[in-house]
């Protein structure tokens, strides 16, 4: 029910009603972008934004820098794991 899908704003179709065309996984659909527009980020600056689409509304912009930070953390964790060759994950030392 709370499903949201990332999409990229391709075109502003109605600046006053805050309507845009968003590419959602290759499908173009009309989306209301009222929730991502404010004085600091007017309608015309929304072109190219990546947004989360839920029931025909853009709920928020996706922050590309934060996404990269999360991915970097995941990378670090995987790398850390690779160096943790000791127990409990490493080979069990042979008993004398």
């Amino acid at each position, binding site marked *: *029910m709370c499903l949201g899908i*990332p999409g990229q704003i391709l075109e502003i179709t109605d600046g006053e*009603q805050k309507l845009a065309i968003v590419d959602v996984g290759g499908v173009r659909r009309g989306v209301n972008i009222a929730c991502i527009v404010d004085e600091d980020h007017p309608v015309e600056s929304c072109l190219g934004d990546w947004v989360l689409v*839920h029931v025909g509304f853009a709920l928020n912009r996706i922050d*590309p820098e*934060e*996404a990269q930070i999360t991915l970097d953390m995941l990378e670090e964790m995987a790398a850390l794991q690779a160096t943790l060759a000791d127990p*409990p994950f490493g080979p069990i030392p042979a008993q004398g």
Partner: protein
Amino acid sequence: MKYVQEFRDPQKAQGLLAAIRALGDQLTAERPGPIKVMEVCGGHTHAIFKYGLEALLPPTVELVHGPGCPVCIMPRGRLDDAIALTQYPSVILTTFGDVMRVPGSRQSLLQAKAAGADIRLVYSPLDALEIAAAHPDRQVVFFAIGFETTAPSTALTVLQAERQGIENFSLFCNHVLVVPALEALLSHPNLQLDGFIGPGHVSVVIGARPYQVIAERYHKPVTISGFEPLDILQSLGMVLRQLAEGRCQVENQYTRLVQATGNPVALAAMARVFVVRDQFEWRGLGDIPASGLRMHPAYARFDAEAKFTLPHGQVADHRACACGEILQGVKKPWDCKVFGTACTPEHPLGACMVSSEGACAAYYKYGHGRPHPAPPPRRLAQV
């Protein structure tokens, strides 16, 4: 797909799983039973089953599936009210597809539609408004359902109806709120939970701050999570790490979308159109104070409950159904007598079997009909 594929990398999942295993071992070294973490949101439940994450977890860590599916918690009385609305000849009832098969006390919306009721499926509340504009001689009611994720969309649709002067549009408002439901769960004496994976898209709207009460008053760690498999595993690891370090805080894994204070435009629209109900009935959980939204008196002309007379009956859940205990995380679906026999996705008795986000439907679809087989007993060496 950008922002999706990179959060599904199996290589990275291995690293996260190893970290989870280590933390699970550490945390259960001096206590009986696994660490229990509830994923609150039905979207997380769906993703956990779709990607088979549960089977990858060590036996020291157990996921409990929470009540965060607005379809599953809709009580039968509200379904009966929706069906009663369709009995008005002027009414076109519009709704998301998810609720069509939820059983009311006598029939579902799908059965009512088959019997001739004018019920139309929409993708967005804006579609319902379009139907209203196209049929000025009819009364178009939108069956509004969903958590805080969805409530701003219906609020903005009402505000648009007001702007456009479309008066034959109204909401049958069934929006529910996450934090009061979690507080009700946490007050339940049977519940044994160590922490929460918090709902990501609800938090896009309300922010991270409203969960402080869970950490401060109930001393449970919360990590707000995204919906891809790596998001969920990372969030689970973050909850375990908090437990290992003796912390109870609200952490945010989904920083690419969730800010501390939420989305101000969405919150303002909700505050304008809705007020909090004194209480709302949740299927399986009963009445929960301040857990639902109704129309603000200033928008009574868009309120289906003010425009039409409805039965407002309180209907008990089906006797054999264990949805309530399953939603509380006390029982697993296979503990229910009718799971997979009298109650299936084609003929659901309880709401957890209706929605693809319900725990029972997920267990049924992904083959978790029985508990994981116990490991074979260790054989004694033959002598």
